[in-house]
């Protein structure tokens, strides 16, 4: 995505894409669109930058191919929707794009798109095809996630103080490119997988007591949040700690923030934060804080996922993580962050987090 920032005429880019396809059609060729393959097979781990990067494998999507026809239509349709948005200076959410594209093709029972996942995937494809980011295409993700801390920012002319936003905190928009940090007073950023844990910490004003920023999303980390974390890391040199469940999905959340995701490998550079640390829950925590009695048995799919993750190139040569995976397999069990609450509701705030951070007890 090096070029992405330089492209200041996204609308023109899309029109160029359209004109290229039309000229193929006029030349009586089978029109096709070239797209880099988005799959584990085409993702490489760059040991230098420590990020996931898209390989050189390319796929072709052509119209006169029974297997491609529908995808081809979806791609040009979403491209034209985006072009229209840019033209009118409006933004649409992924959900909006889905409804804008959805219609039944006359004379058939086929819909251009049936589920939002289809149009979402096409938007990601379009980013790769046009070399424009989703934000540049004027398409937004749903906002998701909250942040609190001693930080003041400016967003669209409004000054916002993250320490004075009541119980909800500031909700992170899908696009954080245009905000400016006015004042940042924190020693680190604590990112957690669970909104419930964030609410608990916020209620105790953990960020105030320990001079940090607390940030969460529900489940997988959205692009807006990943970008926000990266900006805090790069622009303000704040260490980032991840607090996630003791399970494969928790590990993967950390992996995505640190190295980039397989699905969005093309924007890793813009998103990955190689310096991020995994705070917990670790197997050491399980032993040290006696959490075994709150174990949940691993299911078939957990074991499969565990095997997959342990074979990822970026974890393969990491002794600490391999030990971690091995121990989880030996336990045959996983545990949630909230298991800490068994030691008392304030245990996490007053004991666990301060101890871990003071001792720099992280996994890297």
């Amino acid at each position: 995505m090096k070029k992405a920032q330089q492209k200041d005429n996204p609308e023109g880019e899309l029109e160029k894409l359209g004109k290229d396809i039309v000229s193929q059609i006029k030349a009586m060729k089978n029109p096709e669109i070239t797209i880099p393959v988005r799959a584990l097979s085409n993702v490489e781990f760059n040991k230098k930058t420590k990020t996931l990067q898209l390989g050189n494998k390319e796929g072709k999507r052509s119209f006169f191919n029974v297997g491609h026809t529908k995808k081809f239509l979806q791609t040009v349709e979403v491209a034209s929707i985006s072009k229209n948005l840019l033209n009118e200076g409006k933004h649409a959410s992924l959900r909006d794009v889905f409804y804008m594209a959805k219609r039944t093709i006359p004379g058939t029972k086929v819909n251009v798109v049936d589920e939002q996942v289809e149009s979402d995937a096409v938007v990601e494809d379009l980013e790769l095809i046009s070399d424009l980011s989703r934000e540049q295409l004027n398409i937004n993700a749903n906002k998701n996630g909250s942040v609190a801390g001693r930080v003041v920012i400016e967003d669209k002319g409004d000054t916002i103080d993250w320490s004075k936003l009541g119980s909800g905190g500031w909700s992170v928009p899908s696009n954080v490119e245009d905000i400016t940090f006015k004042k940042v007073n924190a020693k680190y950023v604590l990112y957690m997988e669970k909104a419930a844990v964030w609410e608990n910490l916020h209620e105790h004003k953990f960020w105030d007591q320990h001079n940090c920023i607390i940030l969460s999303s529900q489940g997988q980390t959205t692009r807006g949040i990943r970008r926000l974390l990266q900006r805090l890391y790069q622009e303000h040199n704040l260490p980032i700690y991840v607090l996630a469940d003791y399970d494969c999905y928790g590990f993967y959340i950390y992996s995505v923030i640190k190295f980039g995701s397989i699905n969005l490998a093309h924007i890793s550079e813009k998103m990955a934060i190689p310096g991020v640390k995994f705070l917990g829950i670790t197997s050491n925590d399980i032993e040290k804080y006696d959490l075994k009695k709150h174990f949940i048995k691993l299911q078939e799919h957990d074991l499969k996922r565990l095997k997959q993750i342990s074979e990822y190139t970026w974890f393969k040569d990491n002794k600490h993580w391999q030990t971690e995976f091995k121990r989880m397999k030996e336990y045959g069990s996983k545990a949630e962050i909230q298991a800490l609450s068994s030691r008392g509701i304030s245990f996490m705030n007053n004991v666990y987090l301060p101890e871990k951070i003071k001792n720099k007890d992280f996994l890297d």
Partner: protein
Amino acid sequence: MPAEKQITAEELAKGQREISISEFFVKNKHLLGFDNPRKALLTTIKEAVDNSLDACEEARIVPEILVEIKTISEDRFKVIVEDNGPGIVKEQIPNIFAKLLYGSKFHRLRCSRGQQGIGISASSMYGQLTTGKPSIIRSKANPKKKAHYFELNIDTKSNQPKILKDEEIDWPEKKTGTRVEIELAAKYQKGNQSVDQYLKQTAIVNPHLSLVYINPEGVKTDFPRATTELPKEPKEIKPHPYGVELGILIKMLHDTKSKTLHHFLQNDFCRVSAKVAKEICDKALLDSSARPERIATHEAENLYKAINQTKIMAPPTNCVTPIGEELIVKGLKKEVDAEFYTAVTRSPSVYRGNPFIVEAGLAYGGSLPSDELVKVYRFANRVPLLYQLSACATTKSIATTSWRNYGLSQSKGALPAGPVVILVHIASVWVPFTSESKEAIAHYPEIIKEIKLALQEVGRKLGSHIRKNVKAKQQKERANLFEKYIPEVSSSLSKLSGEKKYIIQECLEKKLKKELPILLGDINKKDEKGTTKG
């Protein structure tokens, strides 16, 4: 109250007398396949045709058979069956056609159509009882000599042939052969259990047979042969000890020519070595040098138990002659109009000491109706079984095979539905039927297992054919979708590129016209490849 009058044994004895064979026949005609006039017609033709086929094959003659049904009156028909078989020697003709329970097949174990020797004479008797007319037989056994002409009745009391006419006649158009004419009360009706159906199925599993059939309406149907290759001559085998029941064992002990028990076991059975014979005698606590006819009933019982406790090698299986996969497919292709044919011949297997082979064939698609249950063609030693479908082991095997895996719809425990003919053939030296009328195969687990394995094998082939078909059809449908997609893509592209929609659309449509035959051609090629593979 006066005492009831006692009946003495002498008085009872007055009412007791020998039952004549004809009386037995009339009371038990359902056992022999003469339950009703419609079935009587079928049974008569079936017995005559089975005999002709067996005779031709034994004499290694490629069979040519004529079957004709002439209407005499509304409920009376004359059945004529003529073959090019070896003919019958003069002395045997009356016995074969006019004496019940006379024949060569009852006493031996080999793969043949008829088994009890009751068939054709029973038809003669049925004709005689219902019309009073004699059976007319002509037969030529030597091309250089004249043919014999007989008119025969059965003496229903003594079960002896009554010869009404015995002449020598010229029969120049035949080198050798036999012609039977029987007049009987009957009913002609088409459908699943008709003569027409029987002959059609016979033609399928006897691809070496050339058959001409003239029905009561005078319509002639030709069933040409698909091969001149005769089935391999079946070998006769001695009974296997496991297949013999106690009563038969006692009778065999009595009738044997062997002088010692040891010899009897070794000579009168297959797969009994000297060592095995000794083992059986030891287990039965019998002296191996004892004279067989001196063995008492309770001793025979011990012997019977000992046999079943002794490990004996399975019987030889080369005595069973299958039709063969290739010929089943040929037979089906000849008589069933479908698009896909397949067949499988299993390796020989054994139930109760009797070797048997199961074969299955399948025809799919074409002009077969797709909204009905599958048609089942059942055969035992190449004889079609038309009655008692639901009592048959074949039906049970088909219904308990999961055809949904192979692309047919099926309600639980029922026959599957679809444009399919399923053929199941069981060849054995002794086919186990559920009753004497030989209409359904008994439910031996060994037999059901083999049938199911054969069905699964043809089912898998059917499944892969259907899947290929469905895929090709879907691809064709989707190819036609291009037409529908073009306006949509043109409109999106027009917005994206600024080019006029109709220009894009015209180009794409032109391209489609040029491309579509190639696209469809590709699919068709794949399709063809799939069919020949299957």
